[in-house]
């Protein structure tokens, strides 16, 4: 059924269709609609068995999720920016304890200065917490990826928490038509979660969250890494199953007009839509340019992305994040992909769109101009900052 909904509501509808046992959340702009909607579903009896916990902080939200998931419940939450940072400590514990908690994150800039608008610094800062990370381009993807994230996370071959991220305001507060599956369809796609690896049951006492001495700690981390590796396969399976049932195709990366492309732009999130249109325009002018949208950042899609980008002349990452003193995070990821290839493209990172700064064709033109120079053999310092008002910096 098509419905016109905001990104936040699309994510909340997905969570509702997954029929979670426990939702513990703390409101934060711009994902506040999510806890509001979940509390509404519970208050109206649309989720008759769900416990909605209006906790007193994001730290407690994730902590309550861990407690509930340790019992064996299906659990989800939502947050953004500072909220994700406040959860940060417990994000590691959720993954370390192998609890398949599902989180919806609205990608919002971090303080200081405080800013409620879009960039992706928040979830990039959570990149190494052991969570699977999906990034949606639009509201339909928010719903679909949220739904699929339950299935991936709860797969016995994975058992890792998963977050679905979409861009603040650009998606969270924009109304778009979204195809909403029926409860029956979702029930057939997503079976009930019945874990064997954790329980808090007096009939079968288990000690969860013990002290890990050096003789065991490293093996536990290794097991988590292996679980991420096996998530690669499970994600493919779930994407295929989803496509069969719902007709919408997902891949870890989406190449666009890359076959003969000399310049390839790498995007994550809502910028992908703008960039596709931009590429269409440049293609009309005869420019050999393409794009790769990254949907799954963890586990990182090494083997999917390498063959797509390695024959290009320039690969440029469009980064709504900055590792100060280094550059863009996606640049570093791709450098790791390409470094052992004999023939490899020039790689460059563009920092843009931070704190809600718009990225339009003007900025993308600037990006491509620099890529052309690079293609022509010019050396340049990286990262390249796009749209910085130099007159504001003393």
């Amino acid at each position: 059924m098509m419905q016109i909904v905001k990104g936040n509501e699309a994510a909340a509808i997905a969570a509702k269709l997954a029929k979670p046992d426990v939702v513990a959340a703390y409101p934060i702009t711009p994902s506040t609609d999510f806890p509001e909607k979940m509390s509404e579903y519970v208050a109206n009896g649309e989720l008759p068995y769900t416990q909605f916990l209006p906790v007193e902080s994001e730290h407690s939200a994730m902590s309550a999720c861990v407690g509930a998931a340790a019992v064996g419940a299906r659990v989800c939450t939502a947050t953004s920016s500072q909220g994700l940072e406040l959860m940060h400590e417990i994000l590691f514990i959720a993954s370390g304890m192998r609890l398949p908690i599902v989180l919806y994150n609205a990608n919002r800039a971090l303080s200081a200065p405080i800013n409620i608008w879009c960039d992706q610094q928040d979830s990039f800062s959570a990149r190494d917490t052991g969570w699977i990370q999906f990034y949606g381009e639009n509201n339909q993807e928010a719903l679909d990826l949220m739904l699929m994230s339950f299935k991936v996370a709860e797969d016995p071959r994975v058992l890792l928490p998963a977050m679905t991220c979409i861009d603040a305001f650009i998606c969270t507060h924009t109304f778009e038509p979204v195809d909403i599956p029926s409860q029956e369809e979702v029930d057939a796609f997503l079976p009930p979660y019945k874990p064997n690896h954790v329980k808090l049951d007096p009939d079968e006492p288990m000690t969860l969250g013990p002290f890990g001495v050096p003789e065991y700690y490293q093996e536990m981390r290794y097991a988590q890494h292996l679980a991420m590796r096996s998530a690669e396969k499970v994600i493919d399976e779930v994407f295929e199953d989803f496509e069969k049932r719902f007709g919408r195709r997902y891949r870890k990366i989406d190449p666009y007009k890359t076959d003969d492309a000399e310049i390839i732009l790498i995007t994550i999130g809502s910028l992908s839509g703008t960039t596709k249109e931009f590429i269409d325009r440049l293609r009309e002018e005869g420019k050999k340019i393409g794009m790769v949208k990254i949907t799954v950042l963890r586990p990182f899609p090494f083997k999917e992305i390498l063959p797509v980008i390695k024959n290009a002349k320039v690969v440029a990452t469009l980064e709504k994040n900055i590792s100060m003193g280094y550059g863009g995070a996606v640049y570093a990821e791709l450098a790791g992909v390409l470094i052992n290839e004999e023939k490899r493209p020039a790689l460059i990172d563009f920092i843009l769109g931070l704190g809600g700064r718009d990225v339009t064709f003007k900025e993308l033109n600037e990006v491509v101009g620099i890529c052309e120079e690079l293609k022509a053999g010019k050396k340049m310092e990286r990262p390249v900052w796009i749209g910085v008002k130099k007159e504001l910096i003393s």
Partner: protein
Amino acid sequence: MSNPESLLAPGHRACAGCGPAIAIRQILEVAGRNTIVVEATGCMEVTTTPYPQTAWKIPWLHVAFENAAAAASGVEAAYKALRAKGAIPEDKKPNIIALAGDGGTFDIGIQALSGMLERGHKVLYVCYDNEAYMNTGIQRSSATPLGAATTTSPAGKVIPGKMTRKKPIAMIAAAHDIPYVATASIAYPADLKMKVKKALSVDGPSFLHVFAPCPTGWRFGTEQTVELARLAVETGVFVLYEITDENPLKPIITKRLKDRKPVEEYLKIQGRFRHLFKPEKKQDIIDQIQQEIDRKCKLFGVDE
């Protein structure tokens, strides 16, 4: 012991004479096997669960330092949801006990505790109070009493130990208007067990503040733990009371004192107060501690 088999198995790594270990055994004798413990990081977490061993014969969860109350909220909510949808039997209602030291309760965990109490989860929150961060090496907490020396409130030449009062944590819990709050001491096991029983029977959150001396941190003989705990009550240092739904916010004293002993008797046998007696006696601080106790005992009506 009324129960020969302890649900906290021997062989854990707690120090000899550990007050909190005694507290846990006493609590579990009442709570029994049908209990889930959600514990904060701290002495009793670290010493009982070095993987792949555990001293816990009942289900046990540890998440982090500041969130035992939040994690326990999640456990309780999950049980409610799973019962409601029929995934587990309707009568499967284990006791849920959140357990944390004074650091995890008075300080870093107080926000999560307040949230849990306000939301009304049916959880018994137990604070075992050994009056400092013992797990990290005897640093002061807001439960450390006036005058005590710790590694972050040392007995210096200018500042003689901790110079602030102890936070009245049980009264703070009671201010949330919850069904049951009590203080208890390992030196009064019958009183403690009666309070655990009451706390587990109420329909909603309950809070138990258990005084549990630490020989390592307070610097006294390992055979003196219970004696110290008793002396704390007999001197009025630690007041035993309960607050029930019938009389919200009004403490009912469960151990009144006929001839309250002077606090000096309690202070002088602990290394953490040694600087108040040597090299020269700091009578002004001892008097200040006594006055604080007199004031508190009057407020609570401790003296018979």
